[in-house]
């Protein structure tokens, strides 16, 4: 587990590659009780003007924070976490799914000794979570 004394502003966290498949969407729908058909029904998604089934923004958000929890070693260290939902992540009906690349760095050491982490998540080179930040407390 990383300790506060080892961390300075500008530090880069180990990046994360997320592969999101249709099976992940179904599993997340069940776990989160978000059954919006745009996340599992191709016909419905196209009828409402989407290119096809898209990932839950909350799934992308929930997976992306692993870049922080894997680094802290304690998910309870995350005191705050926020994102803006940008462009959707279409998830094709194949084994590869969609690839989301997540990176993060220590943006700032705050006055109370906690750390602000800036997170980026990109699909096909374009940001899918805007202004994503977490605040963590380290031992």
């Amino acid at each position, binding site marked *: 587990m990383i300790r506060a004394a080892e961390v300075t502003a500008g530090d880069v966290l180990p990046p994360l590659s997320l592969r999101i498949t249709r099976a992940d969407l179904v599993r997340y729908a069940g776990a989160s009780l978000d059954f919006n058909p745009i996340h599992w029904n191709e016909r419905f998604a196209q009828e409402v003007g989407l290119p096809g089934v898209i990932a839950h*923004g909350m799934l992308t958000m929930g997976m992306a924070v692993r870049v922080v929890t894997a680094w802290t070693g304690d998910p309870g260290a995350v005191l705050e976490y926020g994102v803006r939902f940008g462009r959707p992540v279409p998830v094709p009906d194949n084994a590869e799914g969609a690839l989301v690349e997540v990176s993060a760095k220590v943006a700032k050491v705050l006055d109370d000794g906690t750390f602000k982490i800036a997170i980026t998540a990109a699909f096909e080179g374009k940001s899918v979570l805007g202004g994503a930040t977490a605040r963590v407390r380290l031992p």
Partner: protein
Amino acid sequence: MALDQSFIGRTYPPSPPYEVSREKIREFADAVGEPGEIHRDPEAAKAAGYVDVIAPPTFAILISMKANEVLVMDPELGLDYTRVVHGDQTFVHHRPIVAGDRLVVTTHVDAINSRMGNDIVSVRAELATESGEQVTTARSTLVARGTATEEQA
């Protein structure tokens, strides 16, 4: 149609308690790919200083989203929920959510705006124990796409 501005500052009555279970935490951790035993094994969680398994950072959404239905479905507010998308989401954890928590949610309307033809509602869900201990503050904006322009057309 522009939404009724008098809803700004409104607070809905607290939800019935949501009882957080070890199994739901495990399911949610599986779904977002959080590998830690701290979400699955009470002994591992206790060794890390928690009373029971803790929820992943975004778990609160399943409690806050359900509670926010009182607002989304409120016919007096008139939000067209078939056009609602999630604009942003923030969680502030006053402490981690743990298995065994019984959480009541109070939903507040913090702001109502119209931008670029969309109605935007800023909602704050306060999750607290039944005895009033603050656990998580979940803020979200709900964007009803195109509903503000339709009236002008």
